[in-house]
């Protein structure tokens, strides 16, 4: 039986878009006859050598490695980079395992992900001899509200769009074919690029941060480190 490991790379933990994606993937892995365990939360494994080793054993035993992570500063979160560095020390172990990163960003444009983060993950994969089976970039991940603990099936049309893409990912694993590199606009850029619509959305977004900060007793544009 083909074994898949799900690496959940969000430092946020359970309440995250990445975890929502992992939960759905685990469900469809099982439905499609792929053996998989609960997603491995990278953040729980990087702090100690013992836990890091546990994660490396799970990766070593898998045929397919799926990394689900947010985009942080145009690239991987530090905890994911740490995992990549440690894996690189034992690179011979991972040769020919299939690897696919699924990366989400709050910005609606997937190119924030595909411009540099995906190429860095690709470089990591090829350096370790992993088989790059493709990647999935999810632009506008914020729309699914994973941050407040929503699952994909609670994410309306946005969630459905992502679930369909994940179904295709799993289908590629089952048929032993490459998924390819796909960038998904969770929120349609056609609508976002409409000048009036974009202005309205940005206004709503900015206003919402301002209101939340005010509610918490802060001023959103404070400059505490000004000299």
């Amino acid at each position: 039986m083909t074994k898949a490991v799900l690496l959940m790379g969000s430092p946020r933990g359970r309440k995250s878009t990445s975890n929502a994606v992992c939960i759905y993937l685990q469900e469809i892995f099982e439905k499609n006859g792929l053996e998989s365990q609960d997603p491995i939360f990278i953040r729980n494994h990087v702090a100690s050598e013992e836990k890091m080793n546990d994660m490396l054993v799970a990766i070593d035993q898998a045929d397919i490695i799926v990394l689900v992570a947010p985009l942080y500063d145009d690239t991987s979160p530090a905890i994911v980079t740490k995992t990549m560095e440690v894996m690189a020390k034992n690179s011979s172990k991972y040769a020919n395992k299939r690897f696919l990163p699924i990366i989400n960003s709050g910005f609606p444009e997937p190119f924030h992900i595909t411009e540099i983060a995906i190429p860095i993950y690709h470089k990591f994969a090829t350096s370790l001899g992993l088989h790059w089976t493709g990647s999935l970039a999810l632009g506008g991940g914020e729309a699914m509200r994973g941050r407040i603990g929503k699952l994909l099936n609670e994410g309306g049309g946005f969630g459905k769009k992502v679930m369909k893409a994940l179904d295709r990912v799993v289908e590629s694993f089952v048929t032993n074919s490459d998924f390819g590199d796909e960038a998904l606009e969770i929120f349609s850029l056609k609508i976002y690029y409409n000048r009036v619509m974009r202005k309205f959305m940005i206004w709503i977004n900015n206003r919402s941060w301002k209101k939340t900060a005010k509610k918490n007793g802060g001023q959103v544009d404070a400059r505490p480190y000004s000299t």
Partner: protein
Amino acid sequence: MGVLILNGDHKGHNKLTAIQEILEDELKEAGWDTETFILNEYNIKGCTGCFKCWDTTPGICTGIKGDDANKIVEKVIQNELLVFLTPLTFGGYSSELKAIIERMLGLLQPGQLIVDGESHHLKRYERYPSVLAFAVTDNLDKEEEVLFKKLLERHSRNFYPPMHKTEVFQTKENEETIRDRVNKCIQKINVGNKSG
């Protein structure tokens, strides 16, 4: 003029020591006040994405308590130049350097604006430091070098430095060559800062 050097070497490695020392010498020679943090000697955790630095205590990270990140982040915005030193890591930053970069999120303001047709976060401060990013590698890989330059270019769009410049060095380069390349970078930054 102040410069903050963030050395992202891995614990127990000294891959970046030589370039750090050359850089400090040359910057001092050029009239900069330098301060260096060897990040692996400090307790710095990566961002947990709680957004408290945006919506609860705007500008200050209060989501992670008891580590050393805030005192470094404060210095970032108070200097004119920020230098990243990192072992080249698949074309990107080391995890040590990446952790502190993530903690700079509060230097930006939440929300969005469009710059050159792209969504980006808002500036919190009027002025940000210029950024020099130096990566060191044992064996030069052109693909990684290109990735590193591109990473800085993308990162700069979200961090608003007046100038940014990257260089990739090889560990086997001799001191004279490194010194010469470092100097050229400093000159460019000096010119940029004066004209900016």
